[in-house]
């Protein structure tokens, strides 16, 4: 668990947020994250996030599905217990295409979803702070992390000039923890607050 100090700017329009993120990066502030109610295309590039490799993972899962299906059926029907079906050869590849295809799709999708949940730390009873509950409604939240170099008042003024409607300074837990949303368990964390 690590608690850090953040300067949080709340925006009400993505058209304002977009240039603000650019400016903030140019000025050298450390962006913790930007929370938005819906995906904003290009924002990841502006923030300097690298392209996700989830596609590649999906491809690998898919290929392993293909290999599993072909390998298993070949072994079962040609080596383990060869049976003649309708006078066809034991190795009757065309008849195996449907199952091979289905397993490819199954492996790719299940694998990708699990990887997605793992990478984003998504699971039942996982709890995370996202600064403003309205960030899942209509507010775009830009959270700057306070480092040793950050001048708080300067940063606040900077965010305001960039168009933020509401700016707050908060201490927040950055990692996920196991918890329930109907119970306020943030108090426990605030006790351990190391920041003066």
């Amino acid at each position, binding site marked *: 668990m690590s608690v850090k100090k953040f300067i949080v700017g709340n925006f009400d329009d993505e058209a304002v947020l977009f240039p603000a993120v650019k400016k903030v990066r140019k000025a050298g502030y450390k962006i913790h994250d*930007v929370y938005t109610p819906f995906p904003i295309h290009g924002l990841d590039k502006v923030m300097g996030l690298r392209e996700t490799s989830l596609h590649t993972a999906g491809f690998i899962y898919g290929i392993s599905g293909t290999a599993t299906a072909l390998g298993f059926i070949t072994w079962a029907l040609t080596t383990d217990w060869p049976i003649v079906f309708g006078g066809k050869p034991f190795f009757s590849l065309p008849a195996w295409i449907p199952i091979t295809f289905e397993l490819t799709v199954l492996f790719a999708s299940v694998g990708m979803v699990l990887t997605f949940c793992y990478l984003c730390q*998504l699971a039942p009873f996982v709890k995370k702070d996202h600064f403003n509950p309205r960030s899942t409604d209509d507010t775009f939240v830009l959270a700057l992390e306070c480092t040793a170099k950050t001048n708080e008042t300067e940063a606040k003024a900077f965010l305001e000039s960039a168009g933020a409607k509401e700016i707050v300074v908060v201490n927040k837990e950055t990692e996920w923890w196991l918890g329930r949303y*109907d119970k306020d368990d943030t108090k426990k964390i605030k006790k351990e607050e190391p920041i003066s």
Partner: protein
Amino acid sequence: MSLLRYESQVRPALVDGDKNYHDVTEDICRPVEVKPSKLWWVGFLISVGLLVFGIVSVTVEVIYGTGQWNLNKTVGWGWDITNFVWWVGIGHAGTLISAILLLFRQGWRTGVNRAAEAMTIFAVMCAGQFPIWHMGRVWMAFFVLPYPNTRGPLWVNFNSPLLWDVFAISTYFTVSLLFWYSGLLPDLATLRDRAKLKWRKFFYGVTSFGWTGSTKHWQRHEALSLVLAGISTPLVLSVHTIVSFDFATSVVPGWHTTIFPPYFVAGAIFSGFAMVQTLLLVTRKVLGLSQYITIEHIEVMNKVIVLTGSIVGIAYLTELFISWYGANQYENFAFFQNRLNLASPYGWSYWIMMGCNVLSPQIFWFRKMRRNLLVTFFMSILVNVGMWFERFVIIVTSIYRDYLPSSWSTYYTPTIWEVGFYMGTFGLFFTCYFLFSKFFPVIAIAEIKHILKRSGDGFKEKMDGVEKEEVEEFAEEQLHEH
């Protein structure tokens, strides 16, 4: 302005009314957050009643065997497999809307995709019941899985279309469920963050998996949706293709035709869109979402219905032509005696099919009809009646008169338990749909917000000035250059 992707004024707005992001959240969350209406309770209880009827019917079948369904020596598939194919077909529209239309960048899918995907999942759940209970000794159902067993191990027949079906349907169900649920996560987080009641905070807290809306997470979410859409597209085509293989790979006159895969897929989309219309026309009315599921959405879906209905019509005629042109006496008998001939025992079902699927959708060539809610609702039911009869015609008229006239079954009629089982799946389907519409947002909130500034009514008006300016500027430039 650079952020807004430009969309022409010619395209109708997809969200009516001057909405902002908060309005979208409010409008779509409201039905979830208020107490269910009396109408909801009435519908829900009727559905549960049907479900109970279905459970009783299935229990009778399990105790006394499939003989309770009046199946006989040649008609071994009767209503049961007819219903299976019918429900699987209905499921296809959801994946088409969520996957294929995502790849085709069809903005209108955002209003209807969530409900359509839910419909897919429930329809596939219903479909799955039929082959399982049709096994008779249902406690042996796990025999269809290739697991190491004490009989050798004796593996399942990987060359059999019926086994392909096992893999196709279970994969289809799993992938649809994952696709639907991963799309639901951000919206469940919206509900969680708005929740006032303790149980809501708990329920939506658990189901939203701790979604925050972080940019990195959105980036991965987009990648996931795109790849899932990409692989669901061939999947949805493969599923009904494989269902059609159940028939097409046999040597039964009436089934043994190569046109089946495309014909089945078109028919599936046809009936699925009809079911989407039935559900959404009621949903938008009861939940007050007509600004999100607009008349434009309904018109577009009616266009899909007339297109796929006509494809199905061409397929019927092609089948007839080929059976005549092929000059095979058995094929000829199946098509011209058992189906086309109105005087034959099941001739009437063929003509109901023709009337409902081929003739009646032609009404949608007229714009006025496509935009008429009453006509659309009536048609959506008619189409599904027709599509049920299509499967009935394919199954029963092909097998009630075998090669041996001595084993012709004079008349196959279903029993109350067979009908009850079918009604029971309606109960299952609507019980699930009622619960879904009560506890989950029936429209994808985040996706609507994503298209709001491009296709929202209020924003389109604001963009109006921009468009005129640009067009005039462009015209002027062109004028000076030449």
